[in-house]
């Protein structure tokens, strides 16, 4: 595949993007998407939130998990940064702390794929003022 260098190159790939999207939508109903939020306040960024977010986006795609990863502000857990919130379909969101790539891998394999609990869950009582 040739490298994408310009908007014209990007435009040429439109059909390809479209068919990937259709392929993905075929098997799955949109409510079955996993939703992940990565906390991106200063303390999150300083402790590696960017790396974790990139890892999640790439690995979820590689492992064919239909997920949307977005960023949010402070979740109120400076001491446990980087933190991420994971919401499985039809379930309450769960917040994980101290998420490095290794932990993120474990969260994908155990929690997201099989619904098994893993260490590092933070009890939910946080204040989401910055999240709105």
């Amino acid at each position, binding site marked *: 595949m040739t490298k994408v260098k310009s908007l014209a190159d990007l435009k040429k*790939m439109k059909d390809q993007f479209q068919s990937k999207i259709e392929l993905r939508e075929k098997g799955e109903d949109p409510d079955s998407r996993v939703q992940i939020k990565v906390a991106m306040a200063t303390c999150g960024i300083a402790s590696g939130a960017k790396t974790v977010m990139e890892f999640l986006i790439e690995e979820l795609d590689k492992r064919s998990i239909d997920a949307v990863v977005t960023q949010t502000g402070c979740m109120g857990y400076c001491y446990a940064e980087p933190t991420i919130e994971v919401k499985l379909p039809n379930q309450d969101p769960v917040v994980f702390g101290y998420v490095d790539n290794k932990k993120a891998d474990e969260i994908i394999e155990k929690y997201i794929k099989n619904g098994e609990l893993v260490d590092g869950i933070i009890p939910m009582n946080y204040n989401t003022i910055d999240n709105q």
Partner: protein
Amino acid sequence: MKELALHILDIAQNSIVAGATLIRIGITEDMQGDLLHMTVEDNGKGMPSEMVERVMNPYTTSRTTRRVGMGLPLLHDACRAANGMLTIESAVNEGTRVLATMQLSHIDRQPLGDITGVIVLLFSANPSIDFVYSHIRNGNSYIFDTREVKELLEGIPLNTPEVIKSIREMIASNLDEL
């Protein structure tokens, strides 16, 4: 924070929290003038002038989860360490512009870091916000505008994994050529 790209990610987070719908990020590297110049400009809710004056002080924050704000003071330190300064202009209900300058060749100037990764992360993690990123290096410039890409892709979301990959490639190769 040891990379300017991470500061940009952090300063843009302030714009996101301020409800911006358009965020402009600009970097200029000027070897001749020995200057590095970085701006983050938004159309968010802005701040009153008393707030702008206080904001360089770490004890200024509007967050409720922790009493001090660190983002702007950390960037201020990074600027001063490299013989530069931080300027903030803001108007309530109009927006905010953060301008950081540094001496390009200064030994304590932080490296740019993974700026492509930061731009990609920002637009893919904030699908409802538009970003314009312009990078000027010694007079050559590259501009990336999500509004342009959205129009071109006619409804294909920019946070589709394949789209993210292609845009990353596009930005990186254009920066390499500057």
